[in-house]
């Protein structure tokens, strides 16, 4: 009957391990190179009890409540079992012991050491020691004879010796092993064993791939156990408690059991991963073999050579009831009516007896169980240096803080063996941004954009050095650190220091207010007993300290106590900038390596408010916060241990946007960048490159490097992706202008304009790219992001590259934008004082960017001579405003009337859009016609006329103000043309639109000067009339459109011409007629 191999599970860190059962066989006891002894209540135990015995444990033996271990400080120690309290040192060697073992009665311990010696010690009286000298190399293993008469030992010198314990002499010596210089070089651990409870006692010695058997007393070789399938060197042999079976484990992970009478190999198993088996132990009642390997894993062979099936089944049923009981306990704990779980439990416990389902159940349990310690290990090992162990110590504050109790009650619950859900993450400890771990002797207490605070804590010196980047702020300071300050912050006004309290001394906050103008440059505050400072920060005119009582205490920079507030969870870190205070704290328990952090942002200025109300702080999976602070411009940033830099995006509802992945810039996996500061303008991520560590040493003095930001957008290898990234980065990094101006700071408007200009340039480039790729919809979307003046460029670009449909759509867009603009302008006028977040307004405000469009590089593509305003097409005349700007409140009527018609006209345009592509020859004309193509027919005609008229009659004194584009006045010629159009058409029905105008032009010139003058007069009068009409009633849409145009013309005229009053008068006269 084959035995059942349970899946192995992780028990210790890599390295040599040892295993044994307790006397009753209830627990498996293992030790490993991590220096822990673990007590497993069965293989499924997810929370083995750990007893730390030293730095490394080489061997463990357990009998009658005494746990004997051989550890790396060259001692053999006793601990009580199961409590694990140290119970003294049994013996010492000059180097470490390799193997310890009890005799069968448990009264003596034998230990073999690398100093060639074997010692036998009485457990009760460790002064009675017998040293067995004779080996010429490190002793590999020792074994007591069942009757306590002899002791066998194997050694690296190649010999196996049997000693008489009475006179401490060798009674037999077989040189059967391979020689080696050290245990680490030995091919086999050669764990030998005596056969128990048997008339004829045999010693089994693993030799190469075989097991040699020697008879007790005669010391003759009586047999060899070997198997063709066992090709690896045998490491361990152990006898079953009944003495009938011999189990062995090999270097290659083979596990075999022999029936000694039949000399037959009755079991053959292979280690799941083929690791070297370095220890084995039989269950005291037989039936199970526990084994461990050199990778720290623990395995179990169940139902091995069951001597009587009854006992084993009893065994397993006992186990199963225990397991099911536990799982039920666990369910009760949560007190949920989760029927499903109960049913599952019952199924499991019922189906436990069939071996197969038991295995499956085991599997289920083991999956998370094995993964958990590994995760935790990874979490801690991940850190090349001890930052993590320092800052993320397992239950740092759970132990100390009252708050932790909630968590700590949850912890035992979830570590029940049956629990396979997510595991809680040890909460991250509080830290100061820009500081290196506190356990270092020389460390940075803070490195920020103001300066550096270093702390020396060695034998000669306990001091703090304060150094300023800018020596103009203050000269460097050297302080003796008598109070043992652990925390520091530095601003342009003060140095803030804090120490934790001890039993006698209260936690203190010390402030060196060097910018004070009086003579007292220092103040200190004692916190109430039992309250420790966890994090501190400085702002402008205030200081803050977060304490273990979950308070945030605010002080004025001079030392007055100010506001006091409670935090919802233990603080992690704080940062201050100007009037802003940013606090990160634990929001709850994170699971599976994640931290659950919350963040608050407070404004402490005159108008105090909370900008972020304790929202979750996003971090990468399985990471923790490593830096948090403000950019020089005052935007909150945070950096997690995965190197993701996040920035608070105030324009997107205070969300956090990832702006950089520092790890991408690292050359190797173990390199890191240590962030010291962030600037948004210019975009700089200032950090210190650290080779092979997370933080820099204080000496040699590290130099700051600058990393660029890069949004993690897709396709950044393509041109499009790059430009998108640049654009959005620029947009995000421009947010601070809005924030600063809204909170009353000065803003470098020139830089802001530069940035906006760069953004628009990028948009235009993207537009051009999309045009080239024939992605017109893209173009449209891009144009929506552009400012009005750039849209005009886009329209030109589109029309020149013959994207007519696009150009037309863009026209509509331009119109819309214009009307929006108008609306906003009005709003602005209405509530001038409300200047909040004026960035968006400014960016589209034509007044602020007068004459900018001509500088655009893309403009070069457009011919300079063309004065044509693409907006003419719209017919709405809004765009006719000269870029130089028009006095804002020229006429109340203007703003009131002109908006709505334009909207109507734009709607109408979309309805009646007609595309009339023309040959791109004669430039000026083409331009005109091209641009009017989308206008409704009637209006279009007028446009054209208007256009041509302008080109030809431009030098008329009335429009001489020209040179500036878009002087568009309904002229006499136009009126004339309207009336005479039909006659022209009748004469020459075959004419094209442009030709009609030419023709008309010719005829108009033939008119007498008087006639022409009267037409112009009429034209002027008409515009006046329109204004008048407006006052009274609405005309139909078509008419309105004309009106608007005329009205604006009139406005222009008013502005430019000194005779506009007379024009107005004449208009009245006309209307009366």
């Amino acid at each position, binding site marked *: 009957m084959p035995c059942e191999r349970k899946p192995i599970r992780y028990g210790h860190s890599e390295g040599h391990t040892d295993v044994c059962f307790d006397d009753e066989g209830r627990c498996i006891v293992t030790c490993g190179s991590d220096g822990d002894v673990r007590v497993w209540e069965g293989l499924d135990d997810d929370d083995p009890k750990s007893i730390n015995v030293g730095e490394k444990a080489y061997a463990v033996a357990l009998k009658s409540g005494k746990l004997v271990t051989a550890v790396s400080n060259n001692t053999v120690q006793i601990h009580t079992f199961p409590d694990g309290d140290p119970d003294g040192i049994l013996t010492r060697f000059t180097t470490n012991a390799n193997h310890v073992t009890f005799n069968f009665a448990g009264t003596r311990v034998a230990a073999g050491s690398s100093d060639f010696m074997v010692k036998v010690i009485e457990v009760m009286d460790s002064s009675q020691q017998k040293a067995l000298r004779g080996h010429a190399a490190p002793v590999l293993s020792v074994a007591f004879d069942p009757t306590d008469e002899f002791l066998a030992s194997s050694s690296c010198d190649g010999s196996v010796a049997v000693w008489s314990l009475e006179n401490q002499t060798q009674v037999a010596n077989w040189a059967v092993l391979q020689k080696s210089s050290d245990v680490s070089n030995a091919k086999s651990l050669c764990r030998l064993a005596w056969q128990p409870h048997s008339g004829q006692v045999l010693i089994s010695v693993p030799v190469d791939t075989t097991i040699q058997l020697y008879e007790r007393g005669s010391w003759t070789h009586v047999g060899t156990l070997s198997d063709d399938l066992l090709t690896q060197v045998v490491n361990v042999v152990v006898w079953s408690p009944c003495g009938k079976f011999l189990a062995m484990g090999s270097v290659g992970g083979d596990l075999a059991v022999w029936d000694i009478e039949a000399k037959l190999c009755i079991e053959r198993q292979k280690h799941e991963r083929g690791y070297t088996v370095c220890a084995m132990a039989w269950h005291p009642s037989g039936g199970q073999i526990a084994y461990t390997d050199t990778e720290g894993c623990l395995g179990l062979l169940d139902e091995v050579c069951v001597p009587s099936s009854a006992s084993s089944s009893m065994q397993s049923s006992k186990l199963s009831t225990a397991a099911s009981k536990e799982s039920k306990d666990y369910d009760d704990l949560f007190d949920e009516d989760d029927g499903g779980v109960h049913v599952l439990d019952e199924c499991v416990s019922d189906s436990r007896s069939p071996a197969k389902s038991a295995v499956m159940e085991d599997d289920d349990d083991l999956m998370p169980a094995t993964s958990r310690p590994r995760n935790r290990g990874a979490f801690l090992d991940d850190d090349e240096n001890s930052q993590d162990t320092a800052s993320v110590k397992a239950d740092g504050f759970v132990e100390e803080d009252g708050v932790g109790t909630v968590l700590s009650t949850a912890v035992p619950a979830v570590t029940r063996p049956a629990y396979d859900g997510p595991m809680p993450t040890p909460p991250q400890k509080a830290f100061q941004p820009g500081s290196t771990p506190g356990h270092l002797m020389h460390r940075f207490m803070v490195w920020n954009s103001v300066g550096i605070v270093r702390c020396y804590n060695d034998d000669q010196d306990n001091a703090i050095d304060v150094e*300023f980047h800018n*020596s*103009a702020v203050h000269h460097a300071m050297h302080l003796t650190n008598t109070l043992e300050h652990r925390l520091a912050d530095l601003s342009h006004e003060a140095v803030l220091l804090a120490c934790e309290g001890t039993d006698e001394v209260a936690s203190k906050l010390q402030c060196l207010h060097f910018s004070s103008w009086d003579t007292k440059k220092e103040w200190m505050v004692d916190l109430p007993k039992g309250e420790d400072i966890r994090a501190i920060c400085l702002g402008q005119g205030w200081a803050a300290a977060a304490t273990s009582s979950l308070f945030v205490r605010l002080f004025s920079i001079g030392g007055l106590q100010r506001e006091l507030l409670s935090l919802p969870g233990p603080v992690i870190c704080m940062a201050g900038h100007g009037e802003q205070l940013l606090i990160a704290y634990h929001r709850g328990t994170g699971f599976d390596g994640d931290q659950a952090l919350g963040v608050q942002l407070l404004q402490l200025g005159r108008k105090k408010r909370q900008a972020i109300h304790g929202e979750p702080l996003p971090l990468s999976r399985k990471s923790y916060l490593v830096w948090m602070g403000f950019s020089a411009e005052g935007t909150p940033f945070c950096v997690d241990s995965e190197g993701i830099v996040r920035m608070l995006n105030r324009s997107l509802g205070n969300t956090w946007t990832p702006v950089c992945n520092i790890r991408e810039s690292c050359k190797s996996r173990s390199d890191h960048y240590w962030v010291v500061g962030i600037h948004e303008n210019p975009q700089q991520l200032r950090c210190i490159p650290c080779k092979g560590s997370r933080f820099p040493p204080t000496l040699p003095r590290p130099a700051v490097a600058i990393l660029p930001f890069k949004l993690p957008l897709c396709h950044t290898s393509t041109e499009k992706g790059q430009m998108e990234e640049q654009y959005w980065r620029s947009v995000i990094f421009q947010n601070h202008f809005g924030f600063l101006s809204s909170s009353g700071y000065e803003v470098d408007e020139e830089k802001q304009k530069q940035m906006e200009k760069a953004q628009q340039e990028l948009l235009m480039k993207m537009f051009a790219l999309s045009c080239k790729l024939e992605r017109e919809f893209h173009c449209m979307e891009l144009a929506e992001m552009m400012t009005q003046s750039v849209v005009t460029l886009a329209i030109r670009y589109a029309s020149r590259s013959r994207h007519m449909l696009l150009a037309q759509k863009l026209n509509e867009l331009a119109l819309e934008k214009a009307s929006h603009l108008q609306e906003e302008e009005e709003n602005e006028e209405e509530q001038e004082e409300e200047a909040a977040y004026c960035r968006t307004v400014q960016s589209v405000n034509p007044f602020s960017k007068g004459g900018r469009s001509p500088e655009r590089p893309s403009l070069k593509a457009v011919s300079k001579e063309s004065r044509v305003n693409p907006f003419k097409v719209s017919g709405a005349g809004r765009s006719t405003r000269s870029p130089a700007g028009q006095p804002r409140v020229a006429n109340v009527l203007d703003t009131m009337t002109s908006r709505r018609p334009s909207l109507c006209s734009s709607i109408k345009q979309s309805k009646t859009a007609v595309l009339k592509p023309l040959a791109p020859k004669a430039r000026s004309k083409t331009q005109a016609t091209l641009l009017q193509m989308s206008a409704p027919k009637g209006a279009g005609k007028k446009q054209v006329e208007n256009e041509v008229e302008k080109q030809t009659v431009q030098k008329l004194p009335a429009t001489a103000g020209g040179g500036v584009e878009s002087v568009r006045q309904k002229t006499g010629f136009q009126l004339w043309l309207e009336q005479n159009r039909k006659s022209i058409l009748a004469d020459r029905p075959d004419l094209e639109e442009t030709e009609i105008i030419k023709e008309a032009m010719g005829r108009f010139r033939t008119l007498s000067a008087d006639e022409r003058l009267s037409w112009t007069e009429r034209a002027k009068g008409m515009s006046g009339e329109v204004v008048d009409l407006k006052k009274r009633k609405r005309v139909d849409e078509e008419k309105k459109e004309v009106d608007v145009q005329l009205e604006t013309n009139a406005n222009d005229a008013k502005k430019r011409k000194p005779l506009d009053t007379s024009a107005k008068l004449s208009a009245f006269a006309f209307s009366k007629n």
Partner: protein
Amino acid sequence: MDPSEVEFLAEKETVKVIPNFSLDKIYLIGGDLGPFNPGLPVDVPVWLALNLKQRQKCRIVPPEWMDADKLEEIREQERKEDAFSPVPSCHYMELTKLLLNHAADDIPRADEIRTLVKDIWDTRIAKLRLSADRFVGQQEAHARLDNLTLMEINTTRDFLLDSLNSMHKLRANLQPGKSQDY
């Protein structure tokens, strides 16, 4: 050419400094410098770096090659090979001298570096003398020397050229027939 002139030329090399003051870009004929942000490394010419250092306005970040380990490697390389091996900077001697004289406190293991650079210099000058000797001895018309720095050339030029001139005169006198010309 005077060695001080060579040193003057070397002062045009750039070096990183960490200023402790704040200053906008400065526009000079030789190019724009800055902006200077306290605590942020910035590239400046050596002459400015030294000037700032003397006024305690900055810390100098030693050039990458000015590192004892790297120089040791270079020294070994130089000793191993017969020909001149490439040097880390074409003004290594001048820069070492300037920086070590004025900013030794900013350079870790300054004394070692001084010795190493002197060793390298000595090795190279010895090689140069040797090759000059061979050149003269074999009465060659031309020779090729790679990887020499300006300072090294400068040390040997005056003497070598003068002596070659004198020898030429002497040899010209030795040749029969021509002696009558004088």
